[in-house]
């Protein structure tokens, strides 16, 4: 099945969505507008058998405009088909999360946010996943510097004065009625 046939199959279920076949060497590839991503994904899952989300990733095409492409790899295990969805994204714009269609989208979307800084609307748990929580920048962007020395970050150990220490002990002391049973 090529991209045109795939578009034909799902076009009925997502009327009015501008799907565009993209050139590819290995599997049908479709450009999807960011706003229509979720209905297109749902149509692919429900009407074309793409029950398996293989991976979500992004590519930074700096200096091209629009700068980013978010890439979804899908698989229909029974029909033995594969497909690739791509969403063109300009810097500063967002796209919706696909978690409602494939729960597995949660972590790869976090990874894309972590490494590219692309925001998935409605994700609910968009935290850093591979880099530390206090990391600055998004390393897989093409304008992120490489081969730069960074000083390792350390933290001073927590210190309390003797008075604070004794006050803590006093606060935590529990008196129990010796008669009461556990």
């Amino acid at each position, binding site marked *: 099945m090529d991209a045109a046939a795939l578009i034909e199959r799902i076009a009925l279920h997502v009327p009015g969505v501008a799907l565009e076949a993209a*050139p*590819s*060497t*290995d*599997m049908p590839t479709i450009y999807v507008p960011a706003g229509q991503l979720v209905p297109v994904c749902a149509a692919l899952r429900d009407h074309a058998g793409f*029950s*398996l*989300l*293989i*991976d979500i*990733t992004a*590519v*930074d095409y700096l200096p091209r405009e629009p700068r980013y492409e978010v*890439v979804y*790899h899908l*698989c229909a*295990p029974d029909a*033995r088909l*594969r497909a*690739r969805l791509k969403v063109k994204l300009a810097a500063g714009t967002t796209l919706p999360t696909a978690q409602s269609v*494939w*729960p*597995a989208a*949660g*972590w*790869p979307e976090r*990874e894309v946010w972590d*490494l590219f800084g692309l925001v998935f609307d409605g994700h609910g748990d968009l935290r*850093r*996943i*591979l*880099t*530390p929580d206090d990391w600055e920048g998004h*390393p*897989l962007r093409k304008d*992120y510097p*490489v081969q730069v020395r960074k000083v390792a970050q350390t933290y001073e150990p927590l210190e309390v004065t003797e008075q604070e220490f004794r006050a803590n002990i006093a606060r935590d002391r529990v008196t129990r009625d010796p008669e*009461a*049973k*556990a």
Partner: protein
Amino acid sequence: MAEMRTETMTINMGPQHPSTHGVLRLVLTLDGEIVKKSEVTVGYLHTGIEKTAEQKKWQQVIPLVERMDYLGAQSNSLAYALSVEKLLGMEIPERVQDIRVLIAELQRLMSHLVWLGTHAMEIGAVSMMLYCFREREQLLNINELTAGFRLFPSYIRVGGLREDIPRGYHEAVNAFLDMFPSKLDEYEDMLTKNHIYRLRTEGVGFIPLETALQWSLPGPIARAAGSTYDVRKAFPYLSYANYDFEVPSFPEGDVYARYRLRLREMRESVKIAKQAIARITPTGAWASSDTRVVPPPKDKVYTEMEALIQHFLIYSQGFTVPAGEAYVPVEGARGEHGVYIVSDGTNRPWRVKMRAPSFYACQALPTVIQDGMIADVVAVIGSSDVVMGDVDR
């Protein structure tokens, strides 16, 4: 009588914990011994391999990707080499494909042996670890024979192999394949009907097929829940279509089913490997003859000017790959390994992305261990076969 205090307790498991397979951290909220809620934290092994790969030439990425999933090193490099060859549109000689099939299956055996040893050890059968590592040692010796490197041989290259198989290779592989099935029987004697092992694994860590597909766990986990999806059958790569083997599947979906599935997979791998070694001739083509990518043979480099120039070009500038993108999946030991590459037509990759099966297995952990016993958490992590190098990359 005073009312008993009931409150949940939050405990931290990992990142340094003997049964979290590297550095996986779980924050468990417990009600007594029942896991009520859990949160998985990963990233402790993040080494930025994908970013590093963008600074390297195409052929220099092979050793990098092998270090992602360090137990299935050569299925990483195989997926990468296949992706690049797809973009280059290269034809790979039949003999090279058979050698790659053999390497992929031996790699699966290596990975499953580590899995079996560590998983059984974590739930109390410590001796299994010694037995499994004993056999894995022999497989590592075969790696050493072919490439001089045991864990990360970098023997699979874009366009073929690094060099021809060494003398004595057939003897070494055949000796292993003849010996190994009896060792599998030995493992089964120790675990399959072991009452304690079955109590710890049967009905534990249940992952139904629907959940496995929702959480994107194709591979051993889905096949232990009734799926028959295997990349080798569904999307045949290399020369797998010419091999006679079965895709085992079990309907139960618990830890015990995953154990039995992986043991059956090892028997199937032996079957494929035996067919492969019978097809591989002792000498012959070990790489494509396409001199854009594969350096010319050494005797020509020493005698012909053009060959010498080409040799230097490949090793200094590297080769260029036509602009485009490719994703080729292979069936790794943990499920679908795939490498997505984007080329801008130069000698360095624009983007290299590994589809990591362990990443998805970690994501699904909280769902699987929910409302189970804390002692079963270890059994579930073990049976998911997560490799943190694969998760964090």
